[in-house]
């Protein structure tokens, strides 16, 4: 972990129209800094705006106001054409492994898609080698290549999603509730995989979850969100031992109760 920033948000606000003139403010004046090589966890109950914040950071949606600074450049105001080069450097692992993989594509094509979009491989052989290498990185067998997503279990599908996310050697990956759809033993495997990949590839990781025990396992720092605002941000140890905000205490009580 260094003190170099990879991505930061400055006073970002995003609201959605909910019919008529009413607006729901999903992300309200949020600022956060993320350093190279760290795993920052974004925690909060569902509907608190953490997924929206992730999509804002990835520039999948546009912020109403505020800046998203990636590697020194404000990407929030760039048009799609100019954001594109940054897409190569940040990738996302989604919540539902079943719907984030195209059911009509083979695993080979799913993992190769980013390579094809960016034309990073000169030949078919090179691409094939890279796909096999990625498959190995996420502990899947080579026989998986020519199968379709529905032929895999949830955990295996999520591995395929991770292989796709790391295909372009990104600097940042955003995991949006990436293990919440999996059962506990599989969750542990995927978390270990993410931890290992982070170390091997030097990734920075924004890890979004509602589950504090999962966060405890993987995060360096934790950022607690409530109602579209960040209510606490601290190193993992201090969050668990000495929570400052009422809401964090409430969340911690909830896991110790269960």
């Amino acid at each position, binding site marked *: 972990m260094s003190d170099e920033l990879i991505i930061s948000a400055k006073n970002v606000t995003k609201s959605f129209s909910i019919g008529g003139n009413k607006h729901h403010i999903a992300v309200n004046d949020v600022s956060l800094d993320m350093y190279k090589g760290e795993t920052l966890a974004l925690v909060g109950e569902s509907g608190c705006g953490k997924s929206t914040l992730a999509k804002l950071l*990835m520039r*999948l949606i546009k912020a109403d106001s505020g800046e998203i600074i990636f590697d020194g450049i404000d990407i929030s105001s760039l048009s799609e054409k100019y954001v*594109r080069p940054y*897409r*190569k450097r940040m*990738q*996302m692992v*989604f*919540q*539902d492994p079943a*719907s*984030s*993989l*195209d*059911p*009509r*594509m*083979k695993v080979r094509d799913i993992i190769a*898609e*980013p390579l094809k*979009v*960016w034309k990073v491989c000169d030949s078919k052989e090179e691409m094939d080698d890279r796909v096999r290498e990625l498959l190995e990185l996420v502990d899947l067998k080579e*026989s998986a*290549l*020519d*199968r*379709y997503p*529905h032929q895999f279990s949830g955990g295996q599908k999520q591995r395929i*999603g991770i292989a*796709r996310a790391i295909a*372009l050697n990104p600097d940042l990956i955003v995991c949006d509730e990436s293990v919440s759809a999996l059962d506990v033993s599989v969750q542990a495997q995927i978390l270990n995989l993410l931890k290992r990949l982070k170390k091997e590839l030097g990734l920075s990781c924004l890890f979004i979850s509602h589950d504090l025990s999962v966060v405890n396992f993987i995060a360096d720092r934790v950022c607690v969100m409530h109602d579209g605002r960040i209510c606490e941000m601290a190193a993992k140890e201090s969050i668990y031992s000495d929570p400052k905000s009422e809401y964090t205490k409430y969340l911690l009580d909830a896991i110790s109760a269960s």
Partner: protein
Amino acid sequence: MKKENRQKSEHEFLRAFLQNKAAVISTVIILLIIILSVLAPFLTRYDETGQDLLNRLMPPGNGHIFGTDELGRDVFTRVFYGTRVSLLIGLFPTVLAVAVGTVAGVCAAHFKGAADFIIMRLADVMLSIPGMLLAMVVLYTLGGSLTSVIISLILMEWGGIAVVVRSAALEIQECEYVTAAASIGAGKLWIILRHILPNLLPTLIVLFTLNIPSSILSESSLSFLGIGIQPPQVSLGLMTGTSRQYLFSSPHLVLAPAVMILLLVLSFNFLGDALRDILDPERKTL
């Protein structure tokens, strides 16, 4: 390995297809009709327009399987030549209508906003005019012929197809794999060609199969009314239309083409329904 799995998913489709009685029977009937009408010139020694005024209105038999009509033409020959026209009408305009409807629907779903509004209002306008009325206007302006029947059928059908395709495309667009592709940096065209169209395919197959019978039926109705295909060209609808005055004296003249229309339309309808069941997105096995 590669081949094996490709075969597996095709195998699943084939098995579901073979288990569906309606699908199998209608496919067999359709194939039989296609083969017979393609081979029609070799199956009969009569000419479809050749008149034989001495043998008018002959009942079936005597070398004429379905008898002869009011000008002594062989009904069997004419039915199969008419079927050729019906098949052409069933397939060709439907392919074009599905193509136009797909482009319109996908564009509307993808570009949203003004493009969506304009395309869908245009489709609404088309849908609000009764199809037959629209076809009549086209046919009166362009004159009755095969080409103008095809044009009017495309105009009749694209709107409905565009509406269905748009809603299916919207549903696919909401899927996370489309977001995933966008987050990778894939462009709009990439997403449409690689993700939306392949996932739209089952819907398109069903739309196509279900629109074939309605095309056939529309052409028959228009020709029956005398504004579609014009003699001396042969058409099943035209045959039923011109023979209806002999309905009581020589019922075979009307029955033969009418039964053929019935067979064609029913078979394609059953096939379309069966395919819709088999390709149901819920199965997700294909």
